[in-house]
């Protein structure tokens, strides 16, 4: 029996192993490679996607768990131009190697959905790892995006 769900608004069907982590479905099968592999244990957050709007570590979410649900990846963010969070990331020149940034952006989008005017302590709740150490600029970008979204 195949699994049905949507990715970035497109209907998808998957007949393979339902235990496959969503991350590997997205990368190997849907070829949406913006979502990255970093730890495989749900710690680093490089694989963060939105499932029904909530941030999830896709490396520990089996495909079977998203049956009937709606998945958004970095590629599906801001379908009509860039999302405010992506724009803020450009304005603050956040990226160094850039590898974790798709996950960081998805985590920030989810945070701002719940907390439109985040205090520094709210931003602290994002536990995505950045090995290059871009945290200072991530903070600024989230604050900037919050300002832009409230306009």
């Amino acid at each position, binding site marked *: 029996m195949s699994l049905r769900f949507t990715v970035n608004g497109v209907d998808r069907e998957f007949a393979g192993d339902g235990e496959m982590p969503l991350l590997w479905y997205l*990368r190997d099968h849907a070829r949406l490679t913006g979502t990255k592999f970093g730890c495989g244990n749900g710690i680093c957050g490089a694989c963060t996607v939105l499932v029904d709007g909530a941030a999830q570590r896709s490396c520990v979410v089996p495909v079977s768990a998203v049956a009937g649900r709606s998945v958004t990846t970095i*590629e599906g963010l801001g379908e009509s131009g860039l999302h405010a969070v992506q724009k803020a990331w450009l304005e603050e020149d956040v990226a160094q190697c850039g590898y974790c940034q798709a996950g960081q952006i998805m985590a920030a989008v989810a945070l701002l959905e719940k907390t439109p005017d985040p205090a520094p302590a709210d931003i602290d709740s994002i536990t995505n790892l950045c090995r290059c150490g871009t945290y200072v600029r991530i903070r600024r970008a989230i604050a900037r995006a919050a300002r832009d979204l409230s306009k």
Partner: protein
Amino acid sequence: MNALQFAVTRRAFLQSSLTASGGLLLVPVFSRLATAEEASVSPPNPFGLFLRIEPDNRVFIGARGAEIGQGVKTSLPMIIADELDAAWADVTVEQLPLAIDYSGATPQWKYGPQGAGGSTSIPDAWADLRQVGAQARWLIRQAAAAQWSIPHDDVATRDGHAIHPDGRRVAYGGLLAAAAAMTLPAEPVPMKAPAEYRIIGRPQRVVDAGDIVTGRARYGIDVYEPGAFTAVMLRCPYFDGDIASYEDSAARAVPGVRAVVVVPGPKPGEPITANLATGIAVVAEDTWSALKGRAALKVEWTRGPFAAESSAVLDAQCSELLARTGQVVHNDGDFDAARTGAARTVQARYRQPYVSHAPLEPENAFVHVMAERARVIGPLQQPAGASRAVHLVTGIPRPAISVDMVRSGGGFGRKLTNDFVAEAALISKATGLPIKLLWTRSDDLQHDFFRPFGHHELIATLDVDDRVTGWTHRLASASKYYRRPNMQPEGLWEAELYPDDFPAKLVPNYRLEWHSVQSGMTRGSWRAPAHTANAFVVQSFLDEIAAATGQDPLRLRLAMLGEDREFDYAQHGGPKFSTARLRTVLERVAAGIDWGRTLPRGRGLGIAAHFTFGGYAAHAMEVEVSPRGDLAIHRVICAIDCGQPVNPLGINAQMQGGTIDGLSTALNLEISIKDGRVVEGNFNDYPLATMAQMPRDIEVIIVDSTESPAGCGEMGIPTAAPALANAIFAASGVRIRNLPMRDQLVQALK
């Protein structure tokens, strides 16, 4: 970092030609030689464009460097574009493949050095790439001069246009055919004075940022070549262990698994030139099948010659070694005499753990070994080394090995070694399949070329006026040169102590000693290699001297630096070390943090400065330590003098990132050993700092300079940890000498 060394002659010239579409193509020919290692081989790459100007005035600049997050894909093209006087908005940057020209008697880099290590990309590029841009601009001006019948020198340029003295302008794109017909002078053409820079020194954002924030940027892991299979490996976890027996029928039965092959490792104790451990590879149609296949392998390992090794055993070994005189590797004056006559001595021991690079993108590579050629695509810090590794394990001549570079999700020195490329080549050769090899996080933390472990003992002698008269630094460490080819035991120390580092030549009786620690761990270059260990030790010890003698830590440093001078500096980053430039960064951060002010109880300031690979950096921090030992870092200021700043935004990023790397590593990180294998296996027990654990702001001061530029990928790290340790001492009276710090503050204040 002993990356690539070159016989350099400072001259590059361009060959120009018109493309089919009417564009002007400029390919530089470097009259510099490749390394002796490169000289034994030869590559075959389709030499792509280096600099191309289109009739519509768009400028395409090839990025020769390996982009690992240090920003060279932005900064190196900036150097060309400035001398060309292009408008940066018209520039598109394209990644170049590895290109070495083997047609002549001596192999030559087609585009100049392409590796990333030792913060050399910018200094290596500075003269050559400016000349590339300047020569292209010279051709354009020559063409405009001919068109307008005026002297060459009367043609000005700006933002991609040639400008007549009467104000007429013509776009470069309109001069291409004429420019291509011009002949460059035999000698290098004049270049801009610093005051004329319009792109260099101005903040430019990461050129790939648009692709990064939309998920389109392509990293090694994103290489999905048609027909490629995914491989993962199970490697022997024991240092120099081997396969005793294995059973792979369950693995082969996993749907999607195509092959299981044994990948032999290096012989115990012998130099590591290719892969670093014996293992078994599972090759499958996709990643999940490969991982399931690997989980189904049953392997018994032999524990190898280091089965008794543990972190505690290494600590004991170091304690024993430090009790006696080591190999004296540097000796000024007579320390023993200074000690005899000293009014006072200060002595302390420090410990540096093994740490792992842990780039967020784990090691991976696509390799296809065919009958007479091979293809490599990967996130590489040393693409030439990748070509060499594939040659070594397949016998395919290097001219028949193509190497393409994609963005790398961090490097930090891990991808200087091409062991993972060698593995992919071995698997592809054994199976005949195009292979994308992927390492998992546990693979990465368990099998690395780790930053060396060591214990340091420092002794300072002081005269009656509390001036430092003698200094010894006795280090027992596991050298990073372990198992490096062609390395003699008596030279192992050279990776561990840099004799011309501060306070060399500033203390009359100055002795460095080294002991070799026996350990089975594979070691290598971790961002700013020995500088991270030695700056922590030296800059902490200075504060211990200051505390013991009642001196202000900043004043002590300034007094030791003394009057402004330059000293010879023979290690990487020389040829000179300037006390004035180190003094300046110290003074800048001290002023920034308002050094010397009175602080509330529980708060303290710390400072540290160090010279790393040609760059001068300092940190000052303000911290608070609660009565029960909770640490809060309230303020962090760093300063860098890296010579002429090329991209201030990039420098800012490197300094902030280096600071966080230094703090995260000092606070939390250690790779420990038990029963001859690494204990840690993921980010739960190798806890890189999260955003909440790091300072909310890091202020960066970039010192104005027109000196020849240094890189800055490594300068931000070495002084972060000692500034923190010194601030903690000032706030709490607790001196932390053993890294990582973890809960030592809480324990000390119990």
